[in-house]
């Protein structure tokens, strides 16, 4: 019997089998941010266990609330900063160099095919886009990861989702994943890995694959995963060229992290993407999704473009293609937050920041901020936000607020009209 990508990664990292259904894995990358890590650090200190298993395998960033908004968030940053310094964690990203973790760490080349990755953040599943097993964990798992370099999981079952056909103009990876979550529900992949496959995924950029894998957790999945290929190798090339000399060799090497043809899956779903139209959420669950045509005309107060889901340069380009030469509708606030300094800089040199500013957007520094209602764009009670983020939970972007999740194209079209709008009329 063949193996899935996830099973191959598990076999290669197996440390212990504490029960027939649990495995303890060696972890290649432990990622940390200032919201869930400081409590782990303080607890380790209190227990006299303030150690790290390998500083080169720990990556840390201040990203959720940055610059600090108050004394409490300043202290969270300080605890992480002091800890990184104390343990010689070289890959620590502070103000000026920091960005949204799931955009920043891939950009630095930290994630490679076949890796195991954990972080105290549920959207860690994003990194599965590189053919890695990447799982969000709680603070205790993070603590043990920091201390011992291991993490425990149940043996993974894989749900394979084959995306066939092709995405039409104005329809993106965000629309694809929203439609998938609608179909399989918020509980549809609990305790499973979702392997995204098929021609649509194969032709996607790494940015699009990250968007796809990012929201796997909204269906309950432990990790999203895409088989690594030439696109993966090209993205990683600046970091791996010394190792491989020729890109073909990297592509060949990556093939060992593909599922075998006779691999066993919990379920296989084949979905034709050709007829898919832009999607948008309604109400408070990410599986409550409609065609945008059915939501057109819904008034919004704020448009937010950013986050680990859709704050990459490709996303800003999509939005700018609609915003160019246009203005925000009256009474609509526009906020854009490029997810990393590199994305911000690229957007500056491509003239994209100017397009946003000319349209009337507020351009923020890279941060998670408003996506989870912590800072920089929190909604007032009764307000509505068209957002390129990942969760529309009750109160997510501010108590009493309503969030409609959508693609950067759709958010830009909505910004221009002031009501939820199908972006294809602008493309």
């Amino acid at each position: 019997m063949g193996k899935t990508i996830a099973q191959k990664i598990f076999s290669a990292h197996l440390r212990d089998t504490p029960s027939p259904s649990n495995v303890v894995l060696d972890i290649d990358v432990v990622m940390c941010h200032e919201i869930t890590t400081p409590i782990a650090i303080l607890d380790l200190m209190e227990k006299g266990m303030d150690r790290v298993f390998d500083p080169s395998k720990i990556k840390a960033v201040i990203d959720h609330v940055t610059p600090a908004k108050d004394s409490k968030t300043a202290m969270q940053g300080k605890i992480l900063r002091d800890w990184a310094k104390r343990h010689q964690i070289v890959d620590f990203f502070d103000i000026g160099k920091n960005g949204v973790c799931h955009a920043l760490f891939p950009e630095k080349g930290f994630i490679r095919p076949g890796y195991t990755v954990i972080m105290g953040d549920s959207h860690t599943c994003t990194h599965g886009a590189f053919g890695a097993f990447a799982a969000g964990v709680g603070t205790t798992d993070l603590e043990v990861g920091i201390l011992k370099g291991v993490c425990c999981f149940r043996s993974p079952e894989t749900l394979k989702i084959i995306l066939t056909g092709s995405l039409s103009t104005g329809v993106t990876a965000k629309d694809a994943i929203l439609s998938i979550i609608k179909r399989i529900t918020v509980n549809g992949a609990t305790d499973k890995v979702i392997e995204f496959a098929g021609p649509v995924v194969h032709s996607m950029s790494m940015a699009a694959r990250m968007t796809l894998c990012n929201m796997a957790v909204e269906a309950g999945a432990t990790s999203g995963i895409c088989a690594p290929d030439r696109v993966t190798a090209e993205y990683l090339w600046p970091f791996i060229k010394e190792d491989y000399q020729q890109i073909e060799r990297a592509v060949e090497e990556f093939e060992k992290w593909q599922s075998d043809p006779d691999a066993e899956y919990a379920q296989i779903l084949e979905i034709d993407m050709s007829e898919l139209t832009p999607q948008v959420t309604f109400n408070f669950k990410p599986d409550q999704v409609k065609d945008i045509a059915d939501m057109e005309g819904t008034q919004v107060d704020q448009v937010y473009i950013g986050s680990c889901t859709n704050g990459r340069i490709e996303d800003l380009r999509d939005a700018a293609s609609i915003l160019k030469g246009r203005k925000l509708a009256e009474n609509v606030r526009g906020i854009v937050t490029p997810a990393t300094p590199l994305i911000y800089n690229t957007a500056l040199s491509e003239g994209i920041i100017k397009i946003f500013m000319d349209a009337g957007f507020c351009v923020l520094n890279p941060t998670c901020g408003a996506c989870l209602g912590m800072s920089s764009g929190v909604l007032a009670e009764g307000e509505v936000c068209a957002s390129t983020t990942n969760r529309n939970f009750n109160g997510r972007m501010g108590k009493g607020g309503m969030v409609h999740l959508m693609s950067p194209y759709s958010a830009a079209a909505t910004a221009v009209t002031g009501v939820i709008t199908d972006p294809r009329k602008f493309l």
Partner: protein
Amino acid sequence: MKTFGGPAILLDRDDINTDEIIPAKYLTEISKMALKTHLLEDLLLDGKPFDNQSNTMQKTQVVITRANFGCGSSREHAVWAFEVNDINLILAESFARIFRQNMFNCGILAIELKKEELSSLFSMTGNITVSVDLNNAEVTAASDNVAESAKTFSFTLNSFDRDLVSAGGWLPYADQRY
């Protein structure tokens, strides 16, 4: 070993998420006790705000709920918010993976019951008290309404989860073993 159980509250909804259990604005706290009064602050039941300061809530040690409990964020603050309110047990049809793992990692119990078993608990009258027999893997719900007979269900607890509970969580377990 720690014992589990006590007066229960019924939260009759699927997919109760971490942001409802503890909103992100409280994630700036570095003391677990600071979460105490904010537990379930943003919960909506039947579309209406849940009263998280009610007398029943003050006494509650057990939560009985439906499917996919704790979905969303990885924040262990959601588990700690229960912990600092002396809630030591959650009975549900299913849990989101990270939340469930966080429960056991903290050495507290998340028990999965069948849908129909939970429905029978939801239909009980009076105030419910839950007790757990870990050795026999049985959970019993009794009502203070004498007309209502107690219900006992068996559950599965795999050996690793049991080890975590007896070790007092994943950190002491892992520290000893790896």
